[in-house]
């Protein structure tokens, strides 16, 4: 159903203004207001704040669908009885303008686990309220490896509209029904457009750039992981890991969470859902003190297994977009790109492995 159109940069600027004026929450990759600092996705007031093309923002889009902390319901106790008030799961409309395609793809990957028998109303409430307009990436930096996990700098997955930078504006692909509704609502801003050679060239160049970082065969990686639970590679890899979980928190697809109660007073409080990470020892710690994943090697293995074997086995999706955030953020120098490269070259049976050697 893809339809191709064109939008000029001035028109995109007016479109953004229209959105904000119309009360739609506009989100885009931008620097913190009035400060230097890392680009993050945040609410903006206009196109000028948005960094349309560039490296992946420091944090992903997931916080707009699964916030770091959110109230599931509040409670009020009175004389042995309890009243519950659920958090609303209908949300006001919002538009992400300038999403990196990998981040848009991540959201659709996580859709799978959020709709597995049990439909997560809070996740899908936000999904429904959100239109994602991505801008094709120029190929990322040295830590990007989207093409190695079956995506691409210009991947359409998860986006409602994909913009590709061309001279003076953007080639626009309208990808979903939501995208059509969006374009229809701003019809005067878009012009007819067909195949664009410039857009094709931009996309090809970006793909080439990303491919150069890592060539890996996801099937081979999965086969290794499924056959190498006990393998000396894990201990060597884990040595320099601090077990902090910064990787999981910046990851666009890590979705594990904790559920906690927080009292506001003796009688009132809320149950919340908070981000959590399999890299923390506490994650699997039983009340008895027993911990099925005792060492950091087990936790690293779990992270890789979940992303490249378990999730693909369940949902036919790799739980990784190759955005490279975990590589950039890791204070211990853990490098997923390198690990994948190494695993990809590893025979599936246990073999020799050095300690902490990259």
């Amino acid at each position, binding site marked *: 159903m893809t339809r191709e159109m064109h939008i000029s940069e001035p028109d995109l600027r007016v479109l953004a203004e229209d959105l904000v004026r119309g009360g739609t929450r506009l989100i885009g990759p931008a620097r913190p207001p009035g400060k230097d600092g890392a680009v993050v996705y945040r609410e903006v007031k206009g196109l000028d704040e948005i960094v349309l093309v560039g490296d992946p923002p420091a*944090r992903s889009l997931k916080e707009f669908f699964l916030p770091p902390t959110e109230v599931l319901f509040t409670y009020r106790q009175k004389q042995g009885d309890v009243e519950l008030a659920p958090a609303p799961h209908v949300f006001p409309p919002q538009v992400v303008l300038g999403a990196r395609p990998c981040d848009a793809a991540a959201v659709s990957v996580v859709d799978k686990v959020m709709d597995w028998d049990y439909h997560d109303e809070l996740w899908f409430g936000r999904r429904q309220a959100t239109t994602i307009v991505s801008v094709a990436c120029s190929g990322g930096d040295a830590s990007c490896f989207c093409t190695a996990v079956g995506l691409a700098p210009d991947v359409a997955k998860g986006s409602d509209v994909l913009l590709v930078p061309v001279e003076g504006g953007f080639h626009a692909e309208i990808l979903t029904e939501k995208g059509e509704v969006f374009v229809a609502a701003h019809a005067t801003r878009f012009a007819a457009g067909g195949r664009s050679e410039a857009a094709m060239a931009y996309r090809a160049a970006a793909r080439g750039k990303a491919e150069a970082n890592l060539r890996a065969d996801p099937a081979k990686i999965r086969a290794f992981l499924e056959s190498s639970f006990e393998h000396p590679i894990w201990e060597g890899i884990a040595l320099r890991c601090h*077990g*902090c979980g*910064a990787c999981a928190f910046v990851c666009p697809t890590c979705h594990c969470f904790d559920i906690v109660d927080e009292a506001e007073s003796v009688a009132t409080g809320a149950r919340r859902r908070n981000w959590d990470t399999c890299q923390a020892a506490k994650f699997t710690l039983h009340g008895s003190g027993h911990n099925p994943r005792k060492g950091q090697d087990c936790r690293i293995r779990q992270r890789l297994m979940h992303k490249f074997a378990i999730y693909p086995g369940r949902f036919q999706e790799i739980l990784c977009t190759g955005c490279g955030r975990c*590589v950039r953020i890791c204070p211990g120098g853990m*490098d997923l790109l390198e690990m994948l490269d190494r695993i990809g070259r590893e025979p599936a049976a246990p073999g020799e492995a050095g300690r902490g050697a990259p």
Partner: protein
Amino acid sequence: MQELRELAKKLLLEGTVKVVIGYAEGRRGVLPIFAVTPGEAGRLIFDPRCVQNLATYLSPRREQVVALGRPAVVVKGCDARAVAGMIRESQRSRDDLVLIGVRCGGVLADPVSAVEVSEATVAARCPGCDARVPKHVDHLVGPLPPAPPGTSALDARIAELEALSPGERFAFWRSELEKCVRCNACREICPMCFCVRCVADKAQPQWIESSPHARGNFAWHMTRALHQAGRCAACGECERACPAGIPLNLLNRKIARVVAERFGYSASGDPESPAPIGTYRPEDGEEFIL
């Protein structure tokens, strides 16, 4: 560099240590390595990109590192302060460690993109450092580079904050701490955060709200600052590890200054010096007590 490598090889070959924890060139910048063979020791380096505080790997919580056997560790002056702290607090015995001190001219704020130390590239905590030659180490290698240029931007920033009204400071920290997602990177990377069970992980009672809202984050960072008072080695690793970019060094440095002014104490490389919290003097100031 050669001096460091030769020393590491010798320590491994003669069996003095089983592993040398040091720095090596990685795919993107410098990485910690655990050299167990002389060959691996040949990869060791030290330069201004070596920002990591390797003392963290000496924590008894790092069971897999402990299992490698007696370590030698490459330490800068600030890292040596952390090692001293760990010894002072009975986490490691001095006899179990070989400390290879490296003379330091400051490290880089962004070790991935910058190479040379200059006023623009140096880590904010480095100018004015009094521990460029690590103390209480077993070996000292490398020439002493020139002192990092300029003055610390941290001091200027602290002064700015102190000049604000409480309400303005609260607003500043609220906007910073709102970003915290409670990944605990600040804690996990800290050589002095070696508690087997952190107060923030305790649930009975739950003193510190575990949710990453600003209120839980205030409780966490205030408590952490208190628990670090007089113990913090000022290595800046917590701020470097923070994926949200929270300026934790401001808080660390401010508290170090309070401890120095009030109790005449600053963290040093000497494991024998007593920690300021956990001891007292009857004549300590108490002008704030009615």
